[in-house]
């Protein structure tokens, strides 16, 4: 699907506002909504996984080894839900 933006002429927009590139919202960064930032302290993390499912913005990458990686700051809105559920203080809001 060709790049569509506010300059695209009507002749080049998809009809009816259809989108043929499922999940393309990944290209829309929401990181700049953040006022406070979660810091991942890997040394304290026990990989219990409690934070994996709670992120509203899917900003906690989990690899095939079922281990989390550092935050995806392009997407994290800084809600702090993850920090709150962490039993080991491995996430600090700064």
């Amino acid at each position, binding site marked *: 699907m060709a790049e569509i933006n506010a300059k695209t002429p009507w002749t080049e927009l998809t009809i009816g506002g259809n989108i043929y590139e499922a999940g393309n919202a990944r290209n829309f960064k*929401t990181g700049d909504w953040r006022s406070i930032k979660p810091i991942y302290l890997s040394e304290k993390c026990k990989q219990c996984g409690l934070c994996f499912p709670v992120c509203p913005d899917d900003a906690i990458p989990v690899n095939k080894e079922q281990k989390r990686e550092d935050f995806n700051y392009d997407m994290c809105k800084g809600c702090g839900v993850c920090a709150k559920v962490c039993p080991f203080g491995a996430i600090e809001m700064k």
Partner: protein
Amino acid sequence: MAYNHKEIIANRPSRFTSGHRMCAGCGAPPVARMVLRALKPEDHAVITNATGCMEVSTFIYPYTAWTDSFIHTAFECAGATCAGVEAAYKSMKAQGKLPEDKTTKFIAFGGDGGTYDIGLQSLSGAMERGHDMVYVCYDNGAYMNTGIQRSSATPKFADTTTTPAGTKIPGKMQSRKDLTLIMANHHLPYVAQTAAIMNFKDLYEKSEKAIYTEGACFLNVLAPCPRGWGYPTEMLMEINKLAVETCYWPLYEVVNGKYKITYKPAKKLPIEEFLKPQKRFKHMFKPGNEWMIEEFQKEVDARWEELLRLEEITNKE
């Protein structure tokens, strides 16, 4: 297989992506994402969404946060729209117009406004006709999309923009509609009420059952709204937990008419625990308003008792 949330999350890519514009800390996205993770990775899905917070923040042209096919038409007709898609699938499959080996599942999402209220007729019709679909209500207890107006899912006494807690009328004076029981009385193969607590086990397992039980199934999922309820965003999971531990939001399922409470708190917490952190109930804690808390507690107890009774009756041999 036994539920292992780490395994599920690691092996089943998210079908509800980042880049949506729901509020920071919104309770709905984790719910929707986990519901969709209950889909077999090889299965395709068509998602229908009623107009509401979720729809207007996940599909803003030209971006969609859904990796499956998705359709939104209007506020009150997610049930009928999804039914139409499912009817098309049935018809085209039977005529050999679709690949034999491919399975598509049909899931509709609606908020309490689009489900309890304006969309109730469409939902009831779709369920009664037995379309092979799951309707998931993410219940945040008010019309949050338009700015926190009361719905029939709004709990009693809650302060909303159309039931403001005033000097004469202390918030919403009517009690919550019990939609889960209403849907159970449609005599569907599977109806459940759940919430995203602990590691989402209850939510995942009920989603899986709902999606893979043939016929019309209904899920009612609590979806706390930090803005509408007035609690700090980071408290999301705590609020979920308190709703369940106080039995304000019991977790149960109704399988072919048999009720099963899937979580019974060892010690039922007093309702204050749930109400206290939320600004919408603040006025209930003013001196002289104790009666409101008592009344609220009475109602919660009565509904919990009714549920225990239903479980007992329907499981008698």
